[in-house]
């Protein structure tokens, strides 16, 4: 974000298609996220929410449409009206500015919390160990785990692990954070701590796409709410309005089942 001028949209998807074999999982997704915006995504299981997030940081290749992050095409370069696939190195470079938090945390189990957070800055950004350690300590402090730096993931609760995972993603100083059902694998009493960390992150101005079933979070923190079904965006709007007065019958049906 330092080198380029801030683009109008942090994420822009135009008619994004994705197939796995013969099944079409994304059937033309259109959406746009402005810098600093928190977009919450809801929708039934299997509607393509995770797949869309994975396309945004190119863990999956899209089969059609266009997808921009921070003003740049994801995974491709366009020149003279033709698309050129990016090399692995350039894809990796793009991913550095996108942080991702997974439903199942995916912490590195052979590393302590501190080492998990230090790993990418040291290995990817080439930052000095001492500096990275200080930064990691500060980040763990920020997610309320200053006393857990030396713990291995297996020694932490699910909520603590997810907060370490958030700190790990933040360590790369991303311009955009993607959350894929960050609290769905947690015991109910641990959900609050994680949502609290995410809320503070939103207040600090982070651009976020959050796939979640926490309607309270969407209502309170979200700037926009997207309802996805069957691989496409069905309804989008202000979270409070969509949740109170869904206009599309499929949204009404979904909300009546989860609320």
């Amino acid at each position: 974000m330092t080198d380029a001028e801030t683009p109008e949209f942090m994420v822009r998807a135009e008619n994004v298609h994705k197939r796995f074999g013969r099944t079409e999982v994304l059937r033309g997704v259109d959406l746009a996220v402005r810098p600093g915006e928190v977009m919450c995504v809801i929708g039934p299981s299997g509607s393509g929410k995770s797949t869309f997030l994975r396309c945004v940081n190119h863990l999956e290749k899209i089969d059609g449409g266009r997808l921009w992050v921070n003003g740049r095409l994801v995974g491709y370069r366009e020149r003279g009206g033709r698309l050129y696939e990016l090399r692995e190195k350039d894809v990796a470079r793009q991913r550095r500015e996108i942080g991702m938090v997974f439903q199942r945390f995916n912490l590195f189990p052979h590393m302590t919390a501190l080492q998990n957070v230090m790993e990418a800055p040291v290995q990817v950004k080439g930052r000095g160990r001492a500096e990275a350690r200080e930064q990691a300590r500060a980040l763990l402090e920020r997610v309320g785990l200053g006393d857990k730096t030396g713990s291995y993931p297996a020694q932490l609760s699910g909520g603590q692990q997810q907060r370490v995972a958030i700190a790990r993603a933040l360590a790369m100083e991303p311009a955009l954070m993607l959350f894929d059902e960050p609290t769905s694998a947690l015991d109910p009493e641990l959900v609050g701590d994680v949502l609290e960390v995410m809320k503070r992150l939103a207040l600090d101005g982070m651009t976020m796409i959050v796939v979640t079933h926490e309607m309270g979070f969407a209502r309170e923190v979200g700037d926009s709410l997207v309802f996805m079904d069957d691989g496409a965006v069905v309804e989008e709007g202000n979270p409070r309005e969509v949740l109170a007065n869904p206009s599309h019958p499929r949204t009404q049906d979904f909300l009546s089942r989860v609320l």
Partner: protein
Amino acid sequence: MTSLVKDTEPEGRPEIRAVPVRHYGRWVAAALILYVAVWAVYSVAHNERFGWDVMGRYFTADAVLSGIGTTLGLTAIAMVMGVVGGVLLAVMRLSPNPLISGTSWLYIWAFRGTPVLVQILLWGFISALIPRFSIGIPFGPTFADFSANSVITPFVAGCLGLGLNEAAYMAEIVRAGILSVDPGQDEAACALGMSRTKSMRRIVLPQAMRVIIPPTGNETISMLKTSSLVSVIAVADLLYSVQIIYGRTYQTIPLLLLASAWYLVMTSVLTVGQFYLERYFGRGAARRQTMLERLWANLRTARPAGKGTR
């Protein structure tokens, strides 16, 4: 009821005091085994033909010690070749490029599908196949030229035969290890901007180690014994060294027993080393076994490690 409850029990659980099942059969079996063991030791110790004095005399003879050195050297070099080659082959095998994965498949097919003894013999007689090696550009100028016999000494031939064969076996072990790691780990590493290579080296392989180390320990122990096959191409390892001695003195049995004793000592040391390696790579695992638990588990699962022909 109250008599069953002891109030000093820390977790307040009632303690059961029952008479344990008496295993009379075990006592009978133990007595029988002890009797047979005493008889065996007695008769072995008093059988002249075992030649205990001969074993004592040669136990630390120079030829035997240098043979042990060669055996250990061969084992170490072959295992390093095996592990490095195995990781390379495994990563190639998992490559999306069909040419690379196919090459790896072909190598494993050839080296695992022929007996290691034949491979050792082929390397030993390589000069009959390729009398001279030269370094240079194929079809172009030559920079250096060697006779095969000066480069591929019997020791080198032994290392090649054992190491290249081992790489094929290690490749399968490493591949199983890599596949055992949750794909989410690689994804998390990629999402942080790591390259495939870096993710493999920093994230996937260290976790695969937990699955790779135990069979690699077994491979090493097995290699220590398999390395004795190089005696067919006259490499002076432990077995070949005692063969030379008994060829002169005709004290065949005592010297073979001597070699066996040394092999046992070496495999025992390796077993202890394996335990510590496993513990190191198991760090961060949810449950840490104590040394005794692990040792006990090892003892129970220990199987004869000989692989026969392969």
